């Protein structure tokens, strides 16, 4: 597995059509680190995440200003190879989206795109990724059944495993537990705690408690602006901005 990288975001703005969804974000994410992003709906958390793997490109109305460096690569540059960028930066979406394939083929989707064809290699990747996502024990006997047959919590872990199968350096998670029960949430968090030893993780969450549990650093977004970022232990105890304080103490959002 290649070394995870540091991400530097400099004065990043994103527009969807006329809408200004991110306003001058500047932020560093150290490697092997979990950055939690909290903030109310519409604060630009997801838009930010989608700049990190250039998924905003799919929306023809979106426009981006500023600069993001991932290691040495300027990923916001128009010459950036988006396809290989996305192989380095995996993403788990808010709702679990298994592709209409078997569990095995879902896992093998990314590796096959990278040209891995040999059965024994794929077998090994599938097993390792499922174990890392704490799903292996539940599905090892039915890898050839449809991924749709899994429960919601299992599907989301499948999506995490599918990302890990690509051996990405960075893992983006967009409210991965918003539709899950507490036990499935605990499983995902368990997987994240192990993963951060080897990956850089950006976790967008609606659940401030989850950020407090998992994130090393937490950032608070509001109306497209980065209000405050700091070590989780400090941010939740002594926020410097009154708006952060109001949000985490549950007065709005």
């Amino acid at each position, binding site marked *: 597995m290649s070394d995870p990288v540091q991400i530097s975001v400099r004065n990043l703005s994103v527009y969807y059509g006329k809408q200004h969804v991110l306003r001058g974000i500047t932020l560093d994410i150290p490697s092997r680190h979990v950055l939690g992003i909290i903030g109310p709906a519409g604060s630009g958390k997801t838009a930010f995440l989608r700049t990190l793997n250039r*998924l905003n490109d799919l929306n*023809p109305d979106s426009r981006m200003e500023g600069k993001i460096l991932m290691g040495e690569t300027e990923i916001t540059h128009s010459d950036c190879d988006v396809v290989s960028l996305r192989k380095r930066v995996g993403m788990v979406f808010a*709702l679990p989206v298994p*592709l*209409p394939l078997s569990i095995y083929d879902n896992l093998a*989707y990314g590796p096959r*795109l990278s040209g891995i064809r040999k059965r024994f290699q794929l077998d090994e990747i599938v097993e390792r990724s499922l174990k890392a996502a704490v799903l292996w024990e539940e599905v090892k006997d039915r890898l050839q059944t*449809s991924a749709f047959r899994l429960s919601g919590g299992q599907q989301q872990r499948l999506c995490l495993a*599918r990302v890990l199968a*690509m051996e990405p350096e960075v893992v983006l998670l967009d409210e991965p537990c918003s539709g899950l029960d507490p036990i499935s949430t605990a499983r995902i968090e368990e997987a994240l705690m192990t993963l951060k030893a080897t990956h850089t993780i950006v976790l967008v969450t609606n659940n401030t408690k989850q950020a407090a549990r998992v994130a090393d650093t937490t950032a608070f977004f509001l109306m497209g602006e980065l209000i405050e970022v700091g070590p989780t232990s400090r941010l939740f105890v002594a926020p410097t901005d009154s708006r952060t304080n109001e949000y985490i103490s549950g007065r709005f959002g």
Partner: protein
Amino acid sequence: MRVPPKVTQAIAVALFGGATVLTLAVLVFVIVFVLGKGLPVVSLDFLLQSPREMGKAGGIFPTLVGTFLLPLVAVAIAFPLGVGTSVYLTEYTVESRMTGVIRFGTDCLAGIPSIIFGLFGYIFFVEILQMGWCILSGGLTLAIMVLPTIIRTSEEAIKAVPTSYREVSFSLGATRWETVLKVVLPTALPGIVTGVMLSIGRSIGETAAVIFTAGASLRLPDSLFDSVRTMAVHFYILAREGISIENAYGTAAILIIAVLLVNAVSYGLMNRFIARRTK
């Protein structure tokens, strides 16, 4: 005065139920009538022998071959073109005035009477390109005729594929082409097959476009450049020229059975495909 809900409910059931029953009754009547008149003529000899005396006696074997070949050629040409166009319209362009014009064009094309296609095919393929009356001329003409159906049904099927599937595929490092090939098209396949099925059905039953372009030869074709007669054309000629009403109904019965078979087989294949992907 208000009508009590129970009464309006009863009227609604009677109206809609009646419409359904009437529709089904007409359909069943047509099929039973044609099969009843036609099936007594049908025998193995009828299916496997060549016609004699212009179809007054003998079988319909060459027209079976023609009915099989023409739609095959038509779909073989229209399928890649149509699916390609719909993939282009849905995946490779953004909605614009241009795509609107293309869509409007295909819709207009779909509304043109088949005899116009026949005339066009006659002038363009048969006369200008000097291809003569042959399977290829007919197949090309039918292909143009069914293209709008294939384009629009495929487009709807592709649009119905959830955007989230594409996002997942892209986020896993797939190119657009890989996403189309591995996720979009397999998921849209049942809808695409429906369009192809409709197209085959239309081609099998077509007379006007075929008689001008593929001719009406009763000989077995040796190549794509030979003229053929389809069952629909055979039926038309037998009935129109009063050659043999019995054999006309026999041909019609086989035609109906052929269309039903095509539908049944494609539904079966499609269901097996869906079952395999979601078992």
